[in-house]
């Protein structure tokens, strides 16, 4: 051991030893930094940098060794064998390269030890080949015992160093580098100490030996190369660190930008959290780090939370309030290794939106009452539960009388206010468990629960009618409306919600038909009536298709001469089962359903065709209903009927009631004017009933007025009727309009009307309406008389 110490302190140039150490450190740093960069790189550049790192490591070992040799003062001329020197360098590079290549990804300790041993062997080879390349003018002797100790020791140290370098534990890994340096030091200095140089003037340096002065610049050049590489390595390392910092910063900014709260956790402890999570839990920047997750999200266990699966949880927000959240756990590779990241999503806005949407979907925005869809749900639900428990309940439907008028005349704003006030009053009328809904427009429905009997329904309906019948004060205006209520009581009036609603609706129609502001409960007779009506409608359609109608004619005679001047065409339905059906039974239905259109056309065409064959002085009168006037082509239809039948236009009289003039007066007057221009005469039928507005007579010059038969019935005994008939006759004469008196049944009535100056008479006294053949015989008989 002493020789080692003496060797180190006396036989070496200390400054050069320090330089060797410096080059070693610089070289090792350069190699490692470049190797690290190679690890970060990919593809071809990774291979290149890895190669450079291995070459640099080999060069470092070689340069250190060479400087060490140069520092050696043997006290005699010395030189270097250039071939062995070069060989030692190659062996160092190859040995390190092979060792590193083998070491990558090596997990087994024994393997690593073998690799360390291999590395040690190559360094040992480097050393002793290097030593062999050192030529002196003398003899070289070796202390074999020292070699026998030092070489295995250093090899052992190499092996251990590589083993610990691959260990997981950081503290173990840390002693790898000192062990390696120690191994090299032991190898080198023990090797040098074991070498004994004896000066022998006989021996001279071989001719190919290179002087230290020659080899020194080469070593210096390699050292500068290593220095340069170290600088490059430093640059690369600094760049990499800056990049890593930037990446981290960007990651943090990204995390802070995220709307979701994010926390990186270890076990139950939060390591870092982003700004959203801090904001959500109401704490300042950085305040969440180190806090326990279970304090923030009570009841949430990170270990039992499945990965990538959202769970509902509650977060303790500012002031201890509980915030509904959804959490998602994921294992994310962050920096070195996997980290548990918890994403926390605030659910308040979503829940609010959902509840708002639910409210919008299920309630009427104007009144705040449940809407139609919601009412149906409630009704279905209640009906189902009542069926099980055999309970009774009632469905009431109501609509507002005169609401349309109020809405149209006073404006929609006021109409809306009225509906809101109506909703309030309806709620006041209800029992505690009853529900009122707005079905739409001015239609409301009530679900009355736990009804004791029909009396309870009646009482509620009465309250509703009473409350809605009270005046409304809106913006200083008094508005009076009313409510009509229809009700159906379950289970008596139906079980299914749809049936109950339909039956309540039928009852409502009845209530409205019976004079509004009233209440009706469903009655099976209502249903039967509706069914009968529907059957009649179908029957009527069929009858129009197969033409089961026929025309009867009632003659009109000249009051003075008694001659037949015209005949009124009256439609009859010859039903295959019911026989002759009166117009009163089907004309109103035909008008309601629009079937009057085709029926009216048939009447017109048939009357014209049949009348065309009558004596030329007999005209034909055809009734037109208001519904027919809604058809804009009416004038053309009439003209077409005349053309087809060949009937002269002046032989056709069209009879209208004032109902025709009530709707869209302008258009009706235009149609009438066109008809009149075509030569057709127009009569005012049923005059004296209804409004009997005299302004109609002024607005349109009717050819004829027909006095309603209700005035004639009490003639001539009733003085008032007589006065009215007389007045109408006088008025017609003054206006230049002919007067027909209808419904003349007795000789007295005939005598009276003739005496008062009436132009034409129609009625049973002359003849009842007759089928075509009988009418023609009647005409023949009269003409012959």
């Amino acid at each position, binding site marked *: 051991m002493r020789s080692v110490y003496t060797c180190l302190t006396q036989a070496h140039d200390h400054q050069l030893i320090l330089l060797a150490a410096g080059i070693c450190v610089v070289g090792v740093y350069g190699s490692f930094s470049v190797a690290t960069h190679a690890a970060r790189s990919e593809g071809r550049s990774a291979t290149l940098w890895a190669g450079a790192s291995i070459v640099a490591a080999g060069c470092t070992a070689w340069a250190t060794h060479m400087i060490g040799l140069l520092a050696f003062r043997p006290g005699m001329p010395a030189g270097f064998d250039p071939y062995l020197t070069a060989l030692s360098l190659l062996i160092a590079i190859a040995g390190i390269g092979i060792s590193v290549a083998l070491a990558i990804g090596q997990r087994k300790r024994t393997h690593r030890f073998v690799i360390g041993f291999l590395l040690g062997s190559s360094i040992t080879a480097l050393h002793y080949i290097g030593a062999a390349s050192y030529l002196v003018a003398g003899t070289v002797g070796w202390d074999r015992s020292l070699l026998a100790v030092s070489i295995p020791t250093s090899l052992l140290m190499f092996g251990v160093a590589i083993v610990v370098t691959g260990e997981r534990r950081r503290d173990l890994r840390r002693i790898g580098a000192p062990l390696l340096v120690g191994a090299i030091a032991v190898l080198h200095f023990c090797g040098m100490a074991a070498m004994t140089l004896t000066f022998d003037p006989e021996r001279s340096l071989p001719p190919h030996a290179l002087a230290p002065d020659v080899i020194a610049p080469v070593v210096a050049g390699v050292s500068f190369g290593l220095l340069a590489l170290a600088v490059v390595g430093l640059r690369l390392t600094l760049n990499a660190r800056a990049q890593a910092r930037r990446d981290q910063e960007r990651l943090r900014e990204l995390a802070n930008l995220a709307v979701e709260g994010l926390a990186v956790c270890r076990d139950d402890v939060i390591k870092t959290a982003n700004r959203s999570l801090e904001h959500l839990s109401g704490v300042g920047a950085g305040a969440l780090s180190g806090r326990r997750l279970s304090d923030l999200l009570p009841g949430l266990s990170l270990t039992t939370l499945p990965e990538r699966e959202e769970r509902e949880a509650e977060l303790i927000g500012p002031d201890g309030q509980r915030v509904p959240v959804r959490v998602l756990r994921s294992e994310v590779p962050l920096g070195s290794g996997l980290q548990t990241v918890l994403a926390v999503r605030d659910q308040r806005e979503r829940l609010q939106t959902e509840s708002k949407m639910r409210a919008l979907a299920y309630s009427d925005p104007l009144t705040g009452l449940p809407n139609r869809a919601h009412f149906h749900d409630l009704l279905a639900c209640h009906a189902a539960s009542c069926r099980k428990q055999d309970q009774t309940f009632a469905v009431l439907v109501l609509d507002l009388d005169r609401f349309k008028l109020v809405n149209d005349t006073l404006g929609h704003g006021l109409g809306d206010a009225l509906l809101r*006030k109506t909703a*309030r*009053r309806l*709620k*006041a*009328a209800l029992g505690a468990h009853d529900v009122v809904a707005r079905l739409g427009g001015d239609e409301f429905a009530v679900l009355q629960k736990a009804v004791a009997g029909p009396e309870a329904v009646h009482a509620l309906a009465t*309250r509703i009618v*009473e*409350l809605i019948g*009270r*005046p*409304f*004060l*809106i*913006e*200083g205006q*008094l508005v009076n409306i009313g409510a009509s209520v229809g009700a159906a009581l379950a289970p008596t009036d139906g079980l299914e919600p749809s049936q109950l609603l339909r039956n309540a609706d039928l009852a409502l129609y009845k209530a409205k038909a019976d004079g509004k502001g009233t209440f009706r409960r469903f009655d099976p007779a209502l249903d039967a009536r509706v069914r009968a009506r529907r059957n009649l409608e179908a029957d009527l359609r069929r009858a129009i298709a197969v033409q089961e109608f026929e025309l009867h004619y009632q003659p009109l005679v000249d009051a003075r001469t008694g001659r037949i001047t015209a005949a009124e065409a009256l439609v009859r339905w010859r039903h295959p089962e019911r026989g002759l059906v009166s117009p009163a039974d089907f004309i109103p239905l035909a008008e309601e359903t629009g079937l009057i259109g085709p029926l009216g056309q048939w009447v017109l065409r048939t009357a014209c065709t049949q009348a065309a064959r009558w004596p030329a002085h007999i005209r034909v009168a055809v009734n037109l209903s208001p519904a027919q006037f809604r058809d804009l082509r009416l004038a053309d239809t009439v003209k077409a009927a005349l053309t087809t039948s060949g009937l002269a236009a002046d032989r056709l009289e069209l009879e209208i009631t004032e109902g025709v003039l009530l709707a869209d007066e302008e258009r009706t007057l235009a149609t009438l004017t066109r008809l009149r221009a075509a030569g057709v005469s127009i009569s005012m039928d049923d005059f004296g009933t209804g409004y009997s507005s005299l302004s109609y007579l002024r607005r349109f010059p009717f050819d004829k007025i027909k006095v309603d038969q209700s005035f004639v019935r009490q003639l001539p005994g009733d003085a008032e009727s007589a006065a009215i008939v007389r007045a109408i006759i006088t008025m017609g004469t003054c206006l230049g309009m002919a007067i027909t008196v209808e419904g003349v049944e007795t000789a007295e009535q005939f005598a009276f009307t003739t005496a008062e100056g009436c132009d034409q008479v129609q009625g049973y006294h002359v003849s009842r309406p007759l089928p075509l053949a009988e009418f023609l015989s009647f005409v023949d008989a009269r003409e012959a008389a």
Partner: protein
Amino acid sequence: MNPLDTPDLFRLVYRSRCAIAGTAEEVQRHIDRILTVSRHQNGQAGVTGALMFTGLFFVQALEGPTFAVEAAFDRICCDLRHSNVEVVECGPVLESAFGDWSMSHLVPAADSEALLDRVEHDTDLADAAATAMKLMTALIRSEQHASGSAQQFVA
């Protein structure tokens, strides 16, 4: 509706039939409760007026800003303790006829029986209204003379 220099003052007078069941004392207790609530709410809304109970009918006058009278009348019309609500008078007025009380309670004097009879039984609403107004304003005036007499309940 009002000229700019006059405040928005609206008057509504209605007549309704009492629908409270029970003995006279019970009815009176109900009416006292109605008055208490009415005075509280009217006081806040700036509505003044008078309530007269004839034993069969209520006649109530409401005076105040249009919207406040509307709100008070809305409340009254949701009440099931009376029925047959008929508006006797309704429109903007220049000055108050029933004083500044949030709701005076008028009890008809014994000598006004004939007038009362007309209030209750006159089928013509206009006549009944005129009679009711006459009776009520007369009562108000007589009370103002005997200021603070026992006939008036002050909230």
